[in-house]
């Protein structure tokens, strides 16, 4: 078996992809301040498959948004590949997000675009020309097992298929890591298993660093490492 060796080789480099230092986030819910994060420390190395587990309201989505450079912390710092996110302006943040592969619970595909066009979109945003986009989107969709469905629109695809399109889209710009927010939360269990297999294959086979937020214990245990969150804090961390 070649693949585990490859993973090991990557592991050896031990490059920190994501680091959260004393992360705090306070929202204003009307006039009431809500502390969503109360000091979170987290480190994700290259090739990791980390799951963040916690009930709703535990702050896991907030953490995901901060790690994904979609939002800014009230206190503390997020480093992505060593870059302090808080020092970046809006345009630099946008550029940074191109290196992050988002997968959302509700897929968030553009309904008027076909599967292939959806996969091409991040590459278009990144300024790739049409030829390259076509070629790569075909490869990616083939990789997630949707080669024969690529000219279908999201409404013509099942939930599992849509999520696979979303994963292909997340991989389009060769991201540093995948960030998945309840990726199986909206699809049936059979399709969920397929998705999970796909994610594991990508992680093990291609060494793609993956961070997955979920409230499903069964799903979380599939990752190499799980952190439990409760009330805005990491309360437990274990290697599966």
């Amino acid at each position, binding site marked *: 078996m070649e693949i585990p060796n490859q993973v090991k080789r990557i592991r050896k480099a031990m490059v920190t992809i994501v680091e959260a230092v004393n992360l705090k986030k306070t929202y204003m819910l009307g006039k009431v301040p809500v502390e969503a994060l109360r000091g979170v420390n987290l480190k994700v190395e290259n090739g990791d498959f980390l799951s963040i587990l916690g009930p709703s309201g535990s702050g896991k989505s907030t953490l995901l948004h901060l790690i994904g450079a979609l*939002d800014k912390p009230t206190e503390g710092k997020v480093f992505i590949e060593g870059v302090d996110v808080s020092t970046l302006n809006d345009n630099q943040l*946008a550029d940074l997000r*191109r290196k992050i592969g988002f997968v959302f619970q509700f897929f*968030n595909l553009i309904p008027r675009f076909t599967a292939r066009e959806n996969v091409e979109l991040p590459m*278009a945003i990144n300024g790739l020309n049409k030829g390259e986009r076509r070629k790569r989107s075909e490869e990616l969709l083939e990789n997630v097992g949707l080669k024969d469905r690529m000219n279908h629109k999201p409404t013509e695809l099942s939930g599992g298929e849509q999520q696979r399109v979303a994963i292909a889209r997340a991989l389009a710009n060769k991201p540093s890591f995948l960030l998945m927010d309840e990726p199986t939360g909206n699809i049936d269990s059979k399709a969920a298993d397929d998705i999970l297999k796909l994610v594991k294959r990508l992680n093990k086979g291609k060494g793609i660093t993956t961070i997955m937020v979920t409230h499903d214990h069964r799903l979380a245990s599939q990752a190499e490492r799980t952190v439990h969150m409760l009330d805005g804090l990491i309360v437990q961390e274990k290697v599966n």
Partner: protein
Amino acid sequence: MKVSDILSYSFSAIKLRKFRAGLTTLGVVIGIAAIVALLSITQGLQETITRQLETGLATNTLIVSTSGGFGAGGQGGANSGFKLRINYTKIIDELSPDIDVSAAIVQRRGWIKSGRRELATTIVGVDFAKYADIYSSTFVNESGRIPLNPESNMIVIGRRVNDPWKNETLFCNVNDDVDIIWTNTTTFPMENETYSGVVTAVLKEVGGFGIGGPSDSSIYIPLSQAQSFFRTDECSQIIVRLKNSDKVTIDNVSKAITDAFSNQVSVISATAVLNTLTSVFSVIELFLGGIAAISLLVAGIGIMNIMIVSLMERTREIGILKALGMEGRTVLLIFLSESVIIGLIGAVIGIASGWGLANVVAIALGGGGAFMGNGAAGAGGIVITPLLTPIVAIVAFVFGVGVSVIFALYPAWRASKLKPVEALRYE
């Protein structure tokens, strides 16, 4: 993101809401069409009138009349008892070597009677030889012959007196015996006076009107006959032809004439009339253009409205785009280019349909016949040919696209400033 990709993205968003985009475009179309139609009709009208005037009164002629008559303020000419007399042409001829010839015109409202029918007309007494010399392009016979040494009963008639209804149902023709009638208001009670004459010539159609120059709805009788028939030695106007038509000559001669008559006459040059007309028309154009611009403004508000609705509907989509790494300015450009596409299509269709509308209106008015007709003969209509100058087309185009951009700026800016997390959470 490449410009072509931005455009195709915007286009796909428009295509998704065809009906709504169509209505928004219609707003722009109406605004632009109104501007183009109004301006091209006005410019066509100006062009037509200017051309008519240029043929009707040669640019090297001056028209002398009592100053009160033309309302030149402060002179008190009309009240001072000053009368312009026929024999003043002799004085005027001596005033400047630049003066070629001058001719007096005696003019009264009256009727011409042929058989049992009567037609209201303007009776103009002129020296046929001089008048034909000055208006060599318009005082020309269509049929018959204009006598240069006319007998007193000879009459030259305008084309609309010959054929008032433009359908070859002739009122009178060459060699017909006619009666000329006018009402003498100086006697009490007023009295209709009549003499019999014979039509010796019909003028070629002049079209429209001419200040001082020949008119289709007038009849022309020898000056001496007019003097005795109207029992007057006063004239309405004296037409002066100059050897040159440059501004200096016109100004010098005008001043010489007004000075000679102690400011009791006013001198109007064709050039001055044309200039006045041009400035009047620019005011009209500005006014009409302004009214049309209001409809474009309404279209602009429509665009803004639709873009804000679109912004609401697509908040989540914008969140996705931002999560995928799209910069705020690219979001701004996508929204602006949607509006620009609408503006472009609207402007092009608007210019085309405005031009079409102008032609329809022109045909409707031209067919109506009596638009801007002069005289009681009534049928001296002007046919307007709408004129779409490149400037009007370009201005309309720039306006259409400009309005679309300006009114889309705010929604586009708001879209570009959306926070990714909040946009993604938006339901």
